[in-house]
């Protein structure tokens, strides 16, 4: 069957991990990407967003021009802010009018019905991964009373905050384990993970009001995945961060992470941090905080090639963490320095081969447990 050509709009760093994913690239024949000019990406290689190795696709400003080349347009969620009315809606209309299928990873709440009607009228396929046309396999119940033990090994992925390359880690570890021949189920950190073939963070965790119900249902949700998918490994990624950054950026006060790890007990865990010049005291403090708050022992640390933009954070006090992308050469040196201050293995998911190393380390850890008699 002929593969489709696809156009991604508006492209920025949030989509880059998917663009680097082998599975995603194999799904399509040609991938085109278009961005908003003010985001500073147009005319550059797609890798400019994350500072990683070249991707080989140039970001273009010319949405309409590329429309003629593709079958489907993916309207992506972004890290940059945009105006749906001014920046997105005209492009959606142009895509539908041109007879292209549309996929939404961004929320289109108010326009959902209108756009779907337009698609039906025009005879093009409409898919939204954020609104109601993706069925969730598990329906939460309020009568659940107890926690069950999961027999399948669980790998937890947590990040100090957003933008610590956690989603990239989710995709790449999944691929690495699958390449080793394991069957892997993933509950990802983003709300549109079904697009990448695994589970999103379940919506009931935001909809239920009783905290105990959330914990009990998350446990049942994982048990449901274990029973229906029979994986060798379950990867659970925690959305957002796990501790308050400041009075404004609260990262949910770590409540979501706490509830998840009350629901399930991971066998192994990887922590993603921003880049900084860490001291042994700082790393030890973070690891202790995770140990006593969440009950996790960290087996590997991923240092993201992003650093907090302290100038912005101090002077403007924005509502979200502002970061700076760091180049790989600098990261190599800095990661090596970080290895000197902690006994926990340190990696950088942007570095070629590091994800396979993390996967091997996890397998070794899980194999250790298998050495003892298990019943």
């Amino acid at each position, binding site marked *: 069957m002929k593969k489709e050509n696809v156009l991604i709009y508006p492209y920025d760093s949030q989509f880059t991990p998917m663009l680097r994913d082998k599975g995603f690239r194999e799904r399509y024949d040609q991938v085109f990407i278009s961005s908003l*000019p003010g985001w500073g990406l147009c005319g550059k290689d797609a890798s400019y*967003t994350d500072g990683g190795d070249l991707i080989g696709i140039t970001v273009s400003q010319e949405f309409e021009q590329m429309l003629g080349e593709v079958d489907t347009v993916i309207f992506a969620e972004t890290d940059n802010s945009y105006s749906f009315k001014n920046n997105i809606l005209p492009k959606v209309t142009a895509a539908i009018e041109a007879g292209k299928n549309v996929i939404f990873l961004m929320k289109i709440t108010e326009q959902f019905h209108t756009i779907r009607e337009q698609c039906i009228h025009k005879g093009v396929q409409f898919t939204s991964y954020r609104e109601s046309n993706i069925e969730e396999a598990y329906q939460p119940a309020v009568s659940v009373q107890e926690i069950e033990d999961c027999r399948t090994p669980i790998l937890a992925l947590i990040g100090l905050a957003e933008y610590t390359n956690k989603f990239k880690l989710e995709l790449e570890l999944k691929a690495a384990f699958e390449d080793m021949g394991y069957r892997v189920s993933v509950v990802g950190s983003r709300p549109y993970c079904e697009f990448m073939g695994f589970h999103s963070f379940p919506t009931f965790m935001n909809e239920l009001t009783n905290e105990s119900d959330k914990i009990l249902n998350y446990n049942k949700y994982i048990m449901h995945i274990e029973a229906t998918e029979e994986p060798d490994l379950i990867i659970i990624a925690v959305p957002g961060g796990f501790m308050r950054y400041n009075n404004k950026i609260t990262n949910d006060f770590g409540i979501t992470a706490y509830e998840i790890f009350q629901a399930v007990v991971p066998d192994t865990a990887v922590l993603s941090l921003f880049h900084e010049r860490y001291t042994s005291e700082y790393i030890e403090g973070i690891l202790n905080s995770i140990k006593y708050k969440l009950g996790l022992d960290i087996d590997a640390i991923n240092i993201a090639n992003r650093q907090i933009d302290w*100038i912005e954070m101090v002077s403007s006090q924005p509502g979200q963490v502002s970061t700076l992308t760091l180049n790989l050469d600098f990261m190599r040196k800095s990661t090596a320095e970080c290895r000197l201050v902690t006994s926990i293995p340190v990696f950088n998911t942007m570095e070629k081969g590091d994800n396979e190393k993390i996967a091997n380390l996890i397998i070794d850890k899980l194999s250790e447990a298998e050495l003892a008699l298990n019943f």
Partner: protein
Amino acid sequence: MLTEIKPLIHTFKNMSQFYFFDVNKNKIINIDEETYRALNDPDPTLIEGIPVIRKLQSQGYLSVNRAQEIKHANGEILEELLGYNLKKIILQVTQNCNFRCNYCVYSGSYVNRVHNNKRMDFAVARKGIDFLIAHSKDAQEIDIGFYGGEPLLEIDLIIQCMDYAIQVAEGKNVSFSLTTNGSLLNETNAKKLLGYNLRITVSLDGPQEVHDKNRTFASNGCGTFNTVYNNIKRIVQKYPSIKQNLSFSMVIDPTAQFSCLDEFIGSEEEFFNESSVIGSFISNAYRNEEVRFSENFIGEWEYSRFKYLLFVLGKVSKANNSQLIRSSYREHFDYVSKSHRNIAPIAKADHHSGPCVPGQIRLFMSTDAFFYPCERVSETSDIMRIGSIEEGFYFDKIEELLNVGKLTEDNCKDCFAFRNCKICASLSDDGTKLSRETKLKACQDVRYNLEEVLKDVVTLKECGLKKEMIQKAMS
């Protein structure tokens, strides 16, 4: 453990009390006289036996920790900071001005260029705007500033630039800023500027007799106050919304009477309300002849500040609560509001506070498309030319400017103002090169000012200051 190295602290007396400022902790500690004497003894081993000192040491105070090497942490990531996170570009749209101000840095009284007819072409301005967008993918917001000379001499170019920027920066929050002498901010021009996300800073130095003393028209040498004042009154009346985006820059002449300025701000409450007023003294940086403060001015200035502190403390019900006076206590109040916070000790390789990454926050582009760290440096000083639109950034030069502390490395390592320093390369530039002597002169001022801030802060504490009092006075 006995040590020959002294703790990195600064001891001081205030009225009858004794204190030390701990640099690693950034905190002030009240001590008794005996401890004070021991800490000031030339023999550093003496302090080890004193119980109070032992207790403080056990809590992390009196650390001998200091930088082993003066090196700015951002020096290693300049390509990223300037490649991905430029915040602002200031376009020098003209080098011409219709004013001839006595203290203007382009007046001939400073080591700098002088007024002339050079202007920026739109083609050059466009490249500057493109440069900013291409180098700001990680910046949440960007700003484009317009500077002169008098930028409104080129209002059509400014409008053209703003229209272009809005178009090419689609998707990014873009704002604009303009620093003007206000003489051309008439109704016609104000109308043209409406509707843009533009912040306008008008230079107004005080009442007519103060303003006109230094600010005169180039054409006839007459005072400019009436023109500026009437323009602002008219445009605010006609377009009231403009007031929220208007701020005033007051260059305070220390040879004048401060009371005139004080009264002017007090009596023109309606004129200044909703707008911020930023005061600064005539700069001595790059100046050929130093401006000296008159005794009269110092007396009046300090008295006003003193009255304001009494007001903050609730000792008097009314005082000059102008933004000018308030801003002179910003450093004090910042210290007070953050005094409870713990901070990390000085790193082994560290740099004193003061320098920002040259060009990252306020990249200044001259009419002929050369880059400078900001608009405050001398355009004739070669060390300050940090790149061009055609060649990009000169990273070697930028790193040298950033690591300006290397000029005075040994002094900096032991300096109690390490974390409260305000010196950047512009205060160390003798007009041709970075100079250790010029920097050391600025160091004296920084240390003197910090000691004064510390003394003011402890005085306020002794008088019963609480954080809520500051919030109340500022509201």
